[in-house]
């Protein structure tokens, strides 16, 4: 073992570069394996073939599919925020409501959405509303749980402070409990945003004429495997960007809520 420590600048550079280098190495390995064994494209396309396929598809077509998926995912995400946060607050206020609702929430959460999705499409038609509902079924539960946890974890001293001021309960909720729950809510949002994309794709797999999920499915069924992979990577990048946007939102608007370094 060497006692010599690398200087901190180098160390930071290595730490920042490591994941990228690893990623590039994986891609290179992939390319090599495909060429070395001359794997057919319909089994496993080489990365170069996937890049080719990506640029063969018109930009406007990509945007149409992207917009279809993004629209459903974001609407589902927003709707579940609008529903989950008030439900969590109401559940904090009333034990009766918690007892009544919680089992139902668990049942919804533990039913595989993939199994329910076709039934929802049959029931509500293959339009945006049914896709948004499918998305909501996935995103809603983690949001309720994380918000309710944050609200209930509010330290008793803060509640006592509020009570010692004889303040109305409404202000205890809005000025103490909800702000206190913000870091918890963001934990839920980070989970929910990736689930929202999954929900939108599941809905497209069941019935759709556009969207990235639909694009992947339809490319596969025509054995355009490199094109399916291109759609998959595009989807992964979009999902990652959405996840990052949630983090950025927290960093910009609620910097105090981030864990201390």
């Amino acid at each position, binding site marked *: 073992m060497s006692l010599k420590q690398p200087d901190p600048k180098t160390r930071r550079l290595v730490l920042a570069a490591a994941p990228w280098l690893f990623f590039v190495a994986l891609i290179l390995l992939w390319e090599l394996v495909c060429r070395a064994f001359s794997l057919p494209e319909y089994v496993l396309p080489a990365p170069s073939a996937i890049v080719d396929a990506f640029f063969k598809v018109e930009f406007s077509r990509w945007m149409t599919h992207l917009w279809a998926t993004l629209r459903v995912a974001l609407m589902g995400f927003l709707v579940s925020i609008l529903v989950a946060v008030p439900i969590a607050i109401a559940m904090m206020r009333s034990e009766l409501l918690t007892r009544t609702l919680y089992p139902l929430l668990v049942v919804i959460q533990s039913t595989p959405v993939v199994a329910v999705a076709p039934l929802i499409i049959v029931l509500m038609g293959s339009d945006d509303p049914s896709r948004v509902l499918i998305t909501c079924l996935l995103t809603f539960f983690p949001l309720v749980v994380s918000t309710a946890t944050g609200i209930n974890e509010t330290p008793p*001293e803060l509640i006592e402070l*509020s*009570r*010692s*001021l004889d303040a109305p309960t409404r202000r205890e909720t809005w000025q103490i409990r909800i702000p206190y729950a913000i870091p918890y809510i963001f934990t839920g949002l980070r989970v929910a945003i990736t689930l929202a994309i999954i929900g939108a794709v599941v809905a497209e797999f069941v019935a759709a004429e556009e969207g990235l999920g639909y694009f992947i499915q339809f490319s596969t069924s025509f054995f355009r495997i490199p094109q399916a992979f291109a759609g998959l990577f595009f989807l992964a990048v979009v999902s990652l960007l959405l996840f990052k946007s949630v983090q950025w939102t927290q960093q910009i608007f609620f910097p105090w809520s981030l864990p201390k370094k």
Partner: protein
Amino acid sequence: MTGTATNRSFVRLSGVGHRYDPDPATPMAVTGVDLDIQRHEFVAVVGPSGCGKSTLLRMISGLLKPTEGEVSVFGRPVDGPRDDVGIVFQKPTLLPWLNVRKNVLFPLKHKYGRYSHDDEKRAGELLEMAGLESFADKMPDELSGGMQQRVGIVRALLLNPDILLMDEPFSALDAMTREQIGFDLLKIWEENPKTVLFITHSIAEAVLLADRVLVMSKRPGTLLEMLDVDLPRPRTRHTISEPRFAELTERLRKHIYEPEAA
């Protein structure tokens, strides 16, 4: 906002006790406490952990109703949280999403939903008095533990309460910070006299700060002893080296460690 404080103002506890569990077979947390606190008196309470010191404080604040006896302030029975009481908790309990100034103003914002320009001025003056004016725009997590607790004290002073209840306010601080903040508290108290009930684990701290030290027994908590502290004011770090200081702390230790012999 100062209310109707007059010379007859005082806190009186007569036969006060509290049992958390309604079952009469369970022990009382506090029982049979009779106590008169003079206006602007600084009273410290010491006693073993779990002896009901905080229960006593909560009953005076109105956060907790005594199950026996009565607490009255200014001759009127206490039946709920009151305007003229400021509480400083063991932890600073600052709101991490508000800066120091807004934390100090929080009691007004929380109680009435707003505060005026004058209130902001007053918050500024209080912060200045506590030597915190340059930290007014900082967030709580940028402050040391001692400074956070100072903000907690300043916040308790915002509504200009007649009574300041302090529940082991310095117990989370290191020894040096603790001593310094104690002297700062005395300075604030001398400039704005208040009736103070100060709960602490530290015998030396109790003697150094208070006019009178109450010793509480183990559960069920009751008053064992009252000791008048006749050390001259203002008290400084020289007070600690006076023989009288050692004498008083020694006597208190005796009461606590060998209550039968005392």
